[in-house]
């Protein structure tokens, strides 16, 4: 208190409670909206990446174009690549997962050999949360628990092929378990009728050799094969998310620009009403740089407080929405996101500039005597 200054950054707002509440609430609500928009976009991308891209970071897949049995010659050729750790006979199919942005095709790996099935389960760190792994020669499947939530299925149910959500599933399976883990996929044992005739192979690379193996697998394409690699899946993501992203970006930008202008206009009007106060301060000896710094400090403090409270409110809202709406469907909105924090900060900084520049420009031109003489 000994050297405390009279004109502090929040002095005016502490004394003008009503005005401060209105300005602070507006800024905080806007911040919440901005963070929410960024969080939705981030969640959308994260969800899509999680479902589509993550499996291809663990392994690649190669299959015949016609979904016929994979030729032994081809399997031998792939096995001979020095970067390959293991190959597993498998048929890849998919089921629809309704993500935040779109329907995504999630992988279902049908693996006829139980030893291979156990191997892949260990390899992907599958942790059973309910039930058990599929047993040999039975049409059984385990799914990531988010898939079951998403499809409104549970352990013990039968998942049938050819429905609107399972157009690519190659058979009917009894769901015998659910698991947690990074990969949102399904793993099934082959039905008896399948007789070990897999249309493709899972290629597990040696450590750090994924890119090398993918390049080699891609070179096999002309020989009637189709590969599922990281780069191909990335292209899938881009196709799947491009349109929703553009729409989100347009809507988001429109909201952000409108909010920025409204907030800036609002705060500018408050500051312009205070020109008498600044005029008097200048008249009694405060130079313009002091007043400029005071205004910047005030705006910066308000913006920072609004940023903290706005983000916190938004995160609380996202948590509630997640808990009651998305989580029961196996979906997730990202609560803490770097893009959310950075994007919100950048938008607020823009608002800060929009609000501050006109005030400061006017201040440099303005003459305190005009305030005094107008009143006199």
């Amino acid at each position, binding site marked *: *208190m*000994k*050297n*405390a*200054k*009279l*004109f502090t950054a929040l*002095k*005016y707002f502490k*004394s*003008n409670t009503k005005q401060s509440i209105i300005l602070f609430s507006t800024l905080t609500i806007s911040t919440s909206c901005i963070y929410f928009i960024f969080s939705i976009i981030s969640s959308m991308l994260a969800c899509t990446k999680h479902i589509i891209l993550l499996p291809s970071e663990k392994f690649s897949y190669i299959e015949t174009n016609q979904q016929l049995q994979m030729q032994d010659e081809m399997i031998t050729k792939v096995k001979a690549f020095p970067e390959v750790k293991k190959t597993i006979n498998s048929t890849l199919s998919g089921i629809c997962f309704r993500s935040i942005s779109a329907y995504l095709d999630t992988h279902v790996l049908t693996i006829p050999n139980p030893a291979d099935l156990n191997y892949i389960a260990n390899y992907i760190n599958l942790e059973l949360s309910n039930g058990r792994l599929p047993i040999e020669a039975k049409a059984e499947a385990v799914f990531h628990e988010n898939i079951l939530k998403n499809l409104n299925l549970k352990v013990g149910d039968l998942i049938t092929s050819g429905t609107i959500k399972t157009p690519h599933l190659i058979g009917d399976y009894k769901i015998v378990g659910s698991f947690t883990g990074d990969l949102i996929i399904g793993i099934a044992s082959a039905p008896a009728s399948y007789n070990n005739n897999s249309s493709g192979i899972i290629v597990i690379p040696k450590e750090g050799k994924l890119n090398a193996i993918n390049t080699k697998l891609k070179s096999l394409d002309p020989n009637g094969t189709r590969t599922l690699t990281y780069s191909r899946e990335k292209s899938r993501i881009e196709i799947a998310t491009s349109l929703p992203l553009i729409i989100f970006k347009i809507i988001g930008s429109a909201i952000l620009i409108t909010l920025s202008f409204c907030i800036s206009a609002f705060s500018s009007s408050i500051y312009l009403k205070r020109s*008498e*106060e600044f005029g*008097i*301060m*200048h*008249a*009694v*000896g*405060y*130079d*313009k*740089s002091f007043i400029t710094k005071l205004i910047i400090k005030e705006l910066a403090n308000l913006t920072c407080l609004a940023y903290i409270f706005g983000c916190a409110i938004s995160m609380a809202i996202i948590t509630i929405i997640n808990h009651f709406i998305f989580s029961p469907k196996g979906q997730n909105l990202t609560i803490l996101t770097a893009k959310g924090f950075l994007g919100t900060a950048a938008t607020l900084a823009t608002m800060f500039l929009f609000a501050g520049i006109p005030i400061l420009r006017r201040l440099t031109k303005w*003459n*305190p*005597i005009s305030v*005094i*003489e107008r*009143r*006199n």
Partner: protein
Amino acid sequence: MLQCKNLSLTCKDGEHERELLHDINLVIETGESVVFFGPSGSGKSSLMYLLSLLRVATTGEVYLDNNEIMSQNDNAKAAIRKKHFGFIFQQYFLLPHLNVLENVLVPENSISTKSKQKATTFLEKLELTACINKKIHQLSGGECQRVAIARALIHGPTILFADEPTAALDHKSALSAMKMIREHKGNGTLILTTHDTSILTGQERILKLEHGKITEIKHKNFVQAG
């Protein structure tokens, strides 16, 4: 000592230029009380604003203790005002979001115990002890003017500028305000604008302004007789 040489001020009035002050030459000694007297539009306030560096002259110089100050930059002028000048305005111009004590502390920008003590003592002398924590809108006109006097004098200015300080007050309050100004200005110079000679004591040098020129230099008795 405050001095001005060949001070002129013109302003644009539509397409025409209007001369508000014409070639003013003036010396005000330290401790002197000077009154700019004249009808509305005579240029008395303009002259005060020029001398107090609130306004820039079209031509001419202003010297404070023989140092030219009119040509200084904006920040330097503000620093001179803060250090050497005190201001009392007709409309008080107190800051409404601050209380009485804080308004008095405006020139010092400090709420240290020492500053508060100093301001409180000053407010006691001006019989404003009961108002210390009140907001400006809770005060009467007379109280506002006394707060403005305290604000103008708290930092011990060498020159006190008072622009029609009693115009918004009734006669009794006006006399009381002027008494306080004289009592508390100490050895400082007082420069006052007014059109009401009844508040003057006869100790002031009166400069009559008409059409932007100093036409007479008189004392109170001459003005009243005239």
